[in-house]
């Protein structure tokens, strides 16, 4: 690909007083795309973003944003980017508009320009009606809109969003996805983190799966799923059969059609060459062992399966269902 590179990250590492947050991260972000960092809590997503926005210094490697080094040309980088932090970084005692006025001054905009842009970003995130209310009266969704408006005020070429829809209701999430797509349409390059698979799948043009501070794989959601190949078969058994799953797993391991087996809370997941070939063999094994299946299902690989294949675990821990009283 010969697309313009907006962000170049090379062998980046960060150790916080003895605790390794990220190791040997390398990736590129191309101009005008939505790039996602997908990973569970503690994977190192925020750390990576904080290094790129120049507020944390890496302990290894280097990174450039629009050609400017994030450790030596901090002011250049800062003036070209916008940032929407993971926490609702909002001052409860200021109104929405006052947040934006403050930021306008910190980006050294003339007053009239700040005022013009404030109208623009408020309209964009649909917060005009509440702009003069104190932020402490805002709902979670409104705070998020204000956060995004703050990130957009400097008219950035690159916008960094840290878990933009964390904890939001479905409607607000969909609306934020729309804003983000709208920003891409205006030519802004977007780097975001998420631990939602559907968000990564539907919103990101390309993504890096990151786990334990390392990048496991990079590509577009479609590419990643295609690269996995085959199908995923998932078996669910009744509670009484759970102790026999290990027996079943070792019996299935020998079958040629099966590539990988992963236990789940109430059954197992098999990656197979093709479900047409694998299903009869799986069913035959199951009935030979006289295990009673509650449910069997197969599907083309989803992003979830890509995540499991590359990290060896699900993005959110599955807990065995406890008995309802």
């Amino acid at each position, binding site marked *: 690909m010969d697309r313009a590179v907006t962000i170049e990250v090379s062998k980046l590492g960060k150790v916080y007083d003895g605790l390794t947050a990220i190791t040997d991260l390398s990736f590129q972000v191309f101009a005008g795309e939505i790039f996602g960092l997908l990973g569970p809590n503690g994977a190192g997503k925020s750390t990576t973003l904080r290094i790129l926005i120049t507020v944390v210094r890496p302990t290894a490697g280097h990174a450039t944003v629009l050609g400017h080094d994030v450790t030596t040309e901090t*002011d250049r980088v800062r003036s070209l980017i916008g940032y929407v*932090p993971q926490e609702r970084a*909002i001052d409860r005692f*200021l109104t929405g508009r*006052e947040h934006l006025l*403050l930021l306008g001054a*910190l980006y050294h905009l003339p007053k009239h320009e700040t005022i013009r842009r404030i109208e623009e970003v408020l309209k964009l995130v649909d917060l005009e009606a509440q702009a003069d209310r104190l932020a402490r009266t805002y709902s979670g969704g409104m705070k998020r809109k204000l956060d995004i408006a703050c990130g957009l005020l400097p008219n950035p070429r690159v916008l960094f969003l840290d878990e933009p829809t964390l904890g939001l209701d479905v409607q607000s999430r969909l609306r934020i996805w729309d804003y983000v797509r709208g920003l891409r349409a205006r030519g802004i390059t977007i780097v975001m983190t998420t631990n939602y698979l559907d968000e990564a799948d539907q919103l990101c043009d390309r993504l890096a799966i990151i786990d334990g501070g390392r990048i496991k794989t990079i590509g577009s959601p479609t590419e990643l799923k295609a690269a996995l190949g085959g199908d995923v078969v998932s078996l669910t058994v009744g509670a009484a059969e759970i102790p026999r799953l290990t027996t079943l797993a070792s019996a299935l391991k020998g079958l040629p059609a099966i590539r990988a087996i992963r236990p789940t809370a109430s059954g197992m997941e098999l990656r197979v060459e093709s479900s047409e070939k694998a299903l009869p063999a799986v069913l035959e094994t199951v009935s030979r062992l006289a295990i009673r299946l509650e449910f069997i299902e197969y599907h083309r690989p989803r992003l979830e399966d890509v995540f499991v294949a590359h990290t060896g675990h699900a993005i959110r821990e599955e807990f065995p269902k406890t008995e309802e009283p």
Partner: protein
Amino acid sequence: MPEYLQEITALTMRWVRRLSREKFSMLFTLVQPMLFWLIFFGNLFQRAADAQVVQAPSYISFLAAGVVVMTVLNNGLAGGVDLLFDKENGFLERLMATPIRRTSIVLSRFLFVMTITSLQVLVILGVAFLFGVRPATGLAGVAVILFIGLLFGVGLTAISMALAFSVKSHGDFFSVLGFLSLPMIFLSSALVPLAAMPTWMSVLARFNPMTWAIDAVRPLILSGWADALPRVGLVVMIMVAFDALCLYGSARAFRRAMG
């Protein structure tokens, strides 16, 4: 330079705005607890305090200097609190991601804390005036009192901000604050003169910069320039050293927190 000014003004105005939003907090900031010390202690101990010991026409006139410096102490030590909350809720990081000079944030805080402190000192001297305390050195003396307050306040605010940037949780911050402030007050000449203290306390009190500040403010209120000037000269030197020490010690914490 105009950019620097723009940043500092905007950040300082934020503190002012926040204060004006918290109506209660604003009321209690101006009519603060220190005022009660002056009014209640001042009048309560009027008879109990021996005029020979305190060397002043009334206990309240003796106490005024102590209350002024206690106000500076409390404001200074609490000066980092808002930055602590900014750090905890991520607002600080938002500020750090903008192309500002790192010092703007710290300077805006100094400016705000010093302004509020000066206003409070004026309120205290005003109330003392109502109780008959007439500063012997007049308005010029009041200006010198404010100046001494500024010098002491800078160092204290620096310590407080450094602490705010360094602590892991805000519980730690308030513990350290609580631990520092009472001994600072009792081991100083705020409530009784050094001469009337047990020896060990008066020895410790001599190492307390607060004592030196009070001992310069007190003659400005009680006796006059001749008595006050040498002490003012001394305290200015001590405070410059104190500030240098505090700023030097805090600079590391600032740099670590702000990159």
